[in-house]
């Protein structure tokens, strides 16, 4: 499932978690769970960014050839 989430969605969820935590709307009890989720999301985003970068570089390289 995590593979199908979009970067944008992942990013938005991640940002929401950060905001929620900062606003103290998350109890200590939930916090661990949320942090875990956030970690996952960060990973996903980074992976997507890397993939995209590779992709783009490939395309642009072709153009220059």
């Amino acid at each position, binding site marked *: 499932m995590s593979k199908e989430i979009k970067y944008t969605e992942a*990013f938005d969820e991640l940002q929401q*978690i*950060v905001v929620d*935590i900062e606003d103290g709307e998350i109890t200590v*009890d939930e*916090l*661990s769970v949320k942090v875990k989720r956030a970690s996952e999301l*960060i990973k996903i985003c980074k992976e997507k*960014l890397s993939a995209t*970068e590779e992709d783009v570089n490939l395309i642009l390289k072709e153009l220059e050839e």
Partner: protein
Amino acid sequence: MSEAPKVFTLKQVLSSIKKTLEQRYSSTYWVKAEMHKLNLSKKGHCYPELLEKQDGRIVAEIRGMIWQTNFDRINKRFIQTVKEPLKDDMTLLLLVKITYSETFGLSLNIIDVDPNYSLGELQKERQETLKRLQKEGLINRNQQLGFPILPKRIAVISAESSKGLSDFIQVIENNSWGYQFFTMLFPALLQGDNASDSISAQLERIKRVKNHFDMVVIVRGGGGEVGLSCYNNYELCKNIASFPLPILTGIGHSTNLTVAEMVAFRNAITPTELGDFLIQAFHNFSVPVKDAVKRLKVSVSNITSEVKLHLTNESKLFRSAAKQMLAENKQIIHANVKGLENNFKFLLLNHKMMIRKNEQGVYRSARELLSNEQNELEKLQDALPSKTNTQLISEQHKINVLAQSIRLMDPINVLNRGYSITLLNGKTIGEKNTVKKGDKIQTKTATFSVESEVVKTENNNE
């Protein structure tokens, strides 16, 4: 009266008078006197009556006497100087000797007469006549008349027997040019005391028929130099000066001009000269008339040759003007042909150049357009990777920031610093989850988890 008176004989007495007078008046004397009558005797002696007048009245009178021998000498010298003979009624300056004769009585013996004195007297008369005529404005009157251009009809005042007249007629009638004069004689005395009246009378006659005449001539000839003082006579001179026709004189003398000659229209010295003058007047008329033909001929030939020259010149001018005009027009047409050729060539050249310019313009601007597009495209191509990278980097950054926040907020990290969490029934303690004595609570640290029982509670807020 005792003694008888002494008786003298007449001769004794007269001889005594004669002796006394001769002793008393032994020299000669110059006496001025009027000679009333000359009284020339047959023997040639003269016994003139001598007088002196005052206001027309005789105040002195005596008998004079000139011996024949003296008279001849005196008269000759007098005529020589005065141009007049001794005659009656003359005032003379006389050299006299007083003589007394027992038989003839007292008389003045005239030894000499001063002719110069008489000449002066005559000249005085001449001067007076001139002065009077001058004063009366008559002196130039006759001369101011117009002289006939052809003096044909001539009234002649002369004496029939005068040599002057025949000379004059001879000259004007026998001229070789066939000039015809008309003359008519008006006879008159030409010298001496009666001459002035005689001439004046004839002038009066001529005046009556003046329309028949062009002029009057007074001619006299062969009369010598004597007896001309009549021509100084005022009356005669006045008649001449004021006469309505020109009067010409030919009196024939060589002395001073008389007043009559001076006031006449013209004076010729001799009748012949006068005739010549008239002939000359005819010449003056005839010559120009004769010349007119010659002059006409010359000027007509001048005019015609001049006009011919004009005409020839004009016709030459005309010819050259016409030819020049044609030549000019030809030249202008030729210039137009040249102009046409030049302008046409220029126009074509211009157009060729413009086409060439446009051709180059098309090429250049098409190239430019293409190269511009290429540039634009390359700019975009260049921008694409950098823009993409920028976005990727920015995303990376955002992710990193979020990751940092999460890391800070992870409770594990709090616990690591020695904090712990106390839970009741798995939940944090709060107002909703209050702790009572005896509740079993869990304490979590970074490394341990402890379970404890509550001994005492206390409210921190109160």
